[in-house]
């Protein structure tokens, strides 16, 4: 299945792209998609500390199972205001 991973701020700069389409096996979770991104874009930060996820624009836990066509946003520590 294919999942579109959106990157922001420090992750976007490290990867050099705003989004990555990853091919994942059925049952893959949000953290697995980020790990797949690190394999193709090794400059991505290696830690999940402080990273949150959103699937199809709703907050989701790191172990949430993905579905084909999902948009997964990787959210580094936020700093609005």
């Amino acid at each position: 299945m294919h999942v579109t991973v959106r990157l922001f701020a420090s992750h976007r700069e490290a990867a050099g792209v705003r989004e990555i389409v990853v091919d994942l096996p059925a049952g893959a979770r949000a953290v697995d998609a980020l790990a797949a991104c690190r394999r193709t874009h090794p400059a991505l930060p290696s830690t999940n500390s402080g990273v949150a996820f959103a699937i199809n624009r709703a907050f989701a836990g790191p172990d949430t199972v993905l579905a084909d066509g999902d948009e997964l946003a990787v959210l580094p520590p936020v700093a609005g205001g």
Partner: protein
Amino acid sequence: MTERFLLSEKPIDEAAVAALVASPGAGALVTFVGRVRARSRGHDVDLLEYEAYPEMVEGVFHQIAGEVHERFEVAAIAIHHRTGTLRVGDTSVVIAVAAEHRPAAFDACRYAIDRLKQITPIWKKEHGPDGASWVDERP
């Protein structure tokens, strides 16, 4: 401008945001205005570069408003946030809360800005004479 929840590249008019929530039954109207500070974490700041997940931000503002209405006796709330490049003194965020009485308006406004900073998918990069870095405000 009629949206109560807005992410925009245009300057925010504090009075216009307050006008979105004002009503005859609300005797208290509290606004919080966030502005770009000249110093941050021991460094001088020239400008801030805001980045957002725009498709999600307004939904998160709706979520925060829902939490506010569950917790406080308020009549209405509006949240507007800038994105793009801002300079020292520019307004980055305005939250306006109207309530019948002032305790709920103050408490709700404080809650809303704290939650905004905690969960809204917005990031900022500080640029100054010492270089540029993404802000990580985790406690």
